[in-house]
């Protein structure tokens, strides 16, 4: 978190414009990807989410300045998403593994 006194933390405008262009490009990409005909549903979801994660990451890194911040900001920025993944993973572990239950006794 160092560097919040003085002017050192004022980043060049180009950082922001570049980020904006990336975001716009990705927006176009995600909309276009949404209209690819006849792709399996899961693939559509994976593409959409990958692009969303990408977009979110550059917002966090550049607009929210995490890239330039100390460990603590990284830790906090990561913790929320990490915990969300834990929740998703464990809840889905239940749904996904339900059909695995053996049918005629345990496999010996």
């Amino acid at each position, binding site marked *: *978190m160092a560097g*919040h*006194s003085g*002017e050192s*933390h*004022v*980043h060049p*405008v180009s950082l*922001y*414009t570049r*980020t*904006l262009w990336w*975001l*716009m490009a990705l*927006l176009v990409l*995600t*909309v276009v*990807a*949404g*209209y690819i005909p006849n792709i399996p*549903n899961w693939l*559509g*979801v994976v593409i*959409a*989410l990958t*692009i*969303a994660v990408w*977009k*979110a990451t550059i*917002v*966090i890194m*550049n*607009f*929210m300045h995490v890239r330039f*911040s100390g460990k*603590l*900001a990284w830790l*906090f*920025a990561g*913790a*929320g*998403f990490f*915990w*969300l993944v834990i*929740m*998703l993973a464990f*809840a*889905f572990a239940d*749904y996904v593994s339900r059909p695995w239950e053996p049918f005629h006794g345990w496999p010996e």
Partner: protein
Amino acid sequence: MSIQELGKQSATLEYTGEVHHHADGILGEQFETLEQQNTAYLIGMWAFIVQEVLFFGAIFTAYAVYRFKYVLEFTLAHHELSVPIGTLNTFVLLFSSYTMARAVRAAMQNRHTKQAFYLLLTFLFAGVFMVNKYFEYGAKFEHHLFPNAYYSAHEIVEHAKAKGELRVVVEDGREMYELGKTIRGEFKPFKKVSPEEFEQRTKLFFGFYFVMTGLHGLHVLVGMIVIAILIGRALIDHMKNKPIADYMPVEMTGLYWHLVDIVWIFLFPLLYLIGR
């Protein structure tokens, strides 16, 4: 360890002649230095963002479970959302994130008018977003897609029929919906549901749609109020010819605003795009 050494170790908390901030009323009484105060606020904001991520994350989890379970019904319901409006809103919100970042930058550079200008832009973009949402919601109400007692899947069925993604069949005198796809003029059914089930499940989709976008919209609204206050303060400071003594309020609002943006970055594809 000697006390002298300790003094060095804790150099960050040495008094640095910033005492005058007390007079300005900027430095909270509980803090020693401005830097301490600023980092405290930043971490505080981040902790709040962590909280927000899990707050929205829980609905995303629930949404994921049902989207997984009722893919076809949800897909047809997806089609009722307008991708152009959604895209426009995403565009607007991404842009507002940019102007917000510029406003923070201006504040750090101590430039009132520039800061006010970018804040105003942000505010306007947010306004466009809300106006869009207003019309979008209005249309859903009109078409009985708001999940209250008047909800009806009628339009979804009609649209899906027209697109060849749904077929009504009569079995034992009962109407049934077949969901599927028309490929080269031939209807290929994947799933058959009763009209009641179809209604329930698409209603579930719109339930999620309204809860998620509603909570998000609420966040936008709160952000707009805060931004308006900031604009006012910047202008007053400008008229009184005072320097921007404290850019933290703008910076924190910025963090919050980017978070609102990120939530939308996920909402947009999950609600509007997938299943096209």
